């Protein structure tokens, strides 16, 4: 069973947290901190598994993680999950995000936290894997989008005004308007490195 899914950036700022077992808020923050400390000190070419931190269940649990550009995706699982299977799942999650946001980057996770949760809900439910077929997941997200569209646009903010609000962010980072022609093949995604100006900003 998956106990928690944590996404944080290279500085340990959480970008997405989802706990499938109840921890109070304070504990959640401590777990995030501890996990970041465990994961961030590891080189990039070591293995993707390590024993769970003391807070989330000790040696019975494993942290399985991947590091993409500025973000760490960490899944905390018990011994009933296949390690390589979870690595695949992280990959499916990231590829799905990439398809939905086109070249997903850290900012997408910040500004569309709702969307990210909806996508995750299609992958994992109650700590168990729900669906691994990316086509299927994307179909479901599209169904949701259709429902949203039917209810009509109610937003007043235009893409340009959004960009004005985030003057420092280049257009690409918050790629608001996405092209309809996506390249068909799935890239082995590397998230785009943001220009230094963004990277050094603290969240």
């Amino acid at each position: 069973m998956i106990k928690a899914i944590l996404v944080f950036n290279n500085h340990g700022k959480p970008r997405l947290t989802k706990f499938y077992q109840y921890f109070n808020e304070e504990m959640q923050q401590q777990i995030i901190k501890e996990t970041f400390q465990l994961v961030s000190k590891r080189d990039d070419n070591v293995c993707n598994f390590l024993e769970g931190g003391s807070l989330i269940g000790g040696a019975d649990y494993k942290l399985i993680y991947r590091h993409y550009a500025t973000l760490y995706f960490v899944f905390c699982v018990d011994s009933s999950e296949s390690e390589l299977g979870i690595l695949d799942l992280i990959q499916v999650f990231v590829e799905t995000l990439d398809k939905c946001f086109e070249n997903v980057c850290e900012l997408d996770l910040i500004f569309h936290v709702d969307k990210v949760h909806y996508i995750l809900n299609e992958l994992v439910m109650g700590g168990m894997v729900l669906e691994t077929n990316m086509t299927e997941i994307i179909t479901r997200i599209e169904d949701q989008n259709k429902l949203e569209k039917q209810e009509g646009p109610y937003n007043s903010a235009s893409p340009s005004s959004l960009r004005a609000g985030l003057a420092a962010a280049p257009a690409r980072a918050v790629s608001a308007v996405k092209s309809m022609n996506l390249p068909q093949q799935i890239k082995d995604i590397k998230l785009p490195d943001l220009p230094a100006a963004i990277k050094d900003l603290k969240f």
Partner: protein
Amino acid sequence: MPAVRGDGMRGLAVFISDIRNCKSKEAEVKRINKELANIRSKFKGDKTLDGYQKKKYVCKLLFIFLLGHDIDFGHMEAVNLLSSNKYTEKQIGYLFISVLVNTNSDLIKLIVQSIKNDLGSRNPVHVNLALQCIANIGSKEMADAFGTDIPKLLVSGETMDVVKQSAALCLLRLFRTTQEIIPGGEWTSRIIHLLNDQHMGVVTAACSLIEALVKKNPDEYKGCVSLAVSRLSRIVTASYTDLQDYTYYFVPAPWLSVKLLRLLQHYPPPEDPGVRGRLNECLDTILNKAQEPPKSKKVQHSNAKNAVLFEAISIIIHSDSEPNLLVRACNQLGQFLSHRETNLRYLALETMCLLATSEFSHEAVKKHQETVINALKTERDVSVRQRAVDLLYAMCDRSNAEEIVQEMLNYLETADYSIREEMVLKVAILAEKYAQDYTWYVDVILNLIRIAGDYVSEEVWYRVIQIVVNREDVQGYAAKTVFEALQAPACHENMVKVGGYILGEFGNLIAGDSRSAPVVQFQLLHSKYHLCSAATRALLLTTYIKFINLFPEIKSQIQDVLKSNSNLRSSDAELQQRASEYLHLSVTTTTDVLATVLEEMPPFTEKESSILAVLKKKSGRMSAQEAQREARVQAREGNAAPAAEKAQNAQLKTKSPSNAAFPIPQLNNSTSADLLGLSTPPATQNNTQSNTGVLVDVLGDLYGGGGTNTHNGTSAPATISMSGATDNIKKFVCKNNGVLYENDIIQIGIKSEFRQNLGRVGVFYGNKTSMPLQQLVNCECVEDFNGLPDLSVSFTYGNVPQRLALHLPLSCNKFFEPTDMNGESFFARWKNLKAQKIFKATGPMENASIKTKLLGFGMQLLEGIDPNPENYVCAAIIHTRTQQIGCLLRLEPNRQAEMYRLTIRASKESTAQILADLLAEQF
């Protein structure tokens, strides 16, 4: 198909960039509080918030929550959103609840109705939102509210696949909180048959559910085995184009394959030869595919393929029945050991650990020893090295122990701090387990201390001392080796402790060599003295007094040390006491006395027996804790005999011969003669303490003067009457700790604990100035018994032998386990089982003291069961090795008559009588 609308939320963007621009934590908190106040006022104020605004505010709250701030409002708004007609509003309401509402919240009652409506919706997207929410909260209330709806959704023919899939996992989540939620009967087969579903996603989800159900009730679900095998076979043997979307990087449905293989590991290999053959065929195919060239260079391809392969290997190990497959699995793992992917090396090491435990493959695993050792040396990743250590430990046996231990020692020098302690323990265990030559063992442990002294726990260095003391053949070698080790300019304190102890005991064995002459030994140890902690110094002081005994020629030098201000006036009371007592001992006693006091330590009891020396009685109607032992404990009773100047060594002997009160048929049987194995001084860990204890006693006369010897003086011979003790022993029926016996010379205390049929009694002997000498008696209740075991204590007091005949306070009721039950079952049992006693109260009949006694007796006091509130009823089970005896008790006080009526019923008649006798004496 970008799924994200081409919009953003301006307010959210502004807020986030504001936070980002905050220069300090305080500024951030201030900004957040401002925003919280804003949102709160928006929620409270005009009701005209549109969907966009609601969504914006909820997103802001989520962001604030993610930064680690508590959100204490907005819940009601979220609850209201659930019943909205608009999908987007509903969705955001569910999101808020899933992130911020925990299982115990009162809000749950409020959302049940909305969820129910959505579950009944025709739109699968709405149903899924509801299912996700139930699974997120997963509380008992959820299980109660939806326990009937969800199983129906799962098996109904009308349910869409998307919903079925979610329903399976939602049900699994609720099953984890409330096991009764899964209906039995025909549902079992309907759930199992989900494995045949067309939709692979449904099968994957169902597989997770079935696995959890199988864990609870494997028999009921064993029908899933053949279905799982045939499903697996269809996936494994299908060409990858057949499964379309469920092919992941050219691997057919890797997730489902892994799940199915996991499920099958809950069962032994299938009995049906057809099913079994099919499974083996699958495993064979998976192993074969591993050898084929990869269809893609992508890491995802190899990951997916190997995920299935590792799962196949673990089912092969799990069944442990196909030698052919086991060897192939082992070879495959061997290949992975030197794979360039770190993840695969990690998993191969981990999986091989399991293989090493199988008799078919243990030898095959050993072939890879070199590779594993190499991994230990060259792996850059501590996680992988840790697995290599585990595997080396698992593959170790007599043939390769020396090499493996050596390699682990080598690695220890550079090992990561996080795993050192565990490694030290592993090395110590292997060295002891496989030692053929104990000099090797001594070397290993001393090396451990040298390399990783900080990580050597007390148990490890106690153990090496125990082994050296017990094995004469290594004593000289150990003395020589520690002497050499101590010559290092910086050596670990643990080394000083071991060195101090061993040289104090066996330094004489190497004193012949001028390089390790007594004075050299002493100076070497003393050069470390000032760097050590008080505990180590105390140990060294004991070594010094032993040196005075072993090497009289350096007596004056040692006395100088003992006399020095830093010791005699040490701020540490223990050091001060030792220094002054040892000094006086060396001054006042004759060499003979000194030699007796400081005699070599007797061998330690073998570890196992000291942990659990079980007293047995082979046969006989009665059973008791019979110990026949002769524990020689060096001790000395306080004595102010005229001959005070030659303080005498006394021996406190405890001896408990069998007694006529215990009809023990096989009295002469040697098995009952020395079962306790307590032929040594007390517990191993307080060696030094017991030494002190001895010496405190010896010196009692020097300090205490002659005051203590009054009546039971020197001339009075013989056995001291045990009349003083009889009263005390009765008290022990209802308590476990206390003073068993006390007179002017000796006090005997008891501390005991019991668990089911086993017990442990600590007996403490001492006079009033001393630290008690302790003796541990382990016992087991074999059958119910009457009476008490004898304890006979003999010692010399002022040259006069003394003897005490006492009893160990071990009565039948000590082995009670309190049992709770309700009135109905109490009286149902009451009718079956009887011993009755009517007796006069000897003390006041106070409720509180009666209660205390009954609880102390060890039974469960059952309140509110007897119709008469004045009466007491209790229940408990006596655990013996052979049977469990249920006991019920009813005590009826009659205050006018000052009488009690005690009725005890037990599943064994004799027991009832014994208990009635025991308890009646208490009132």
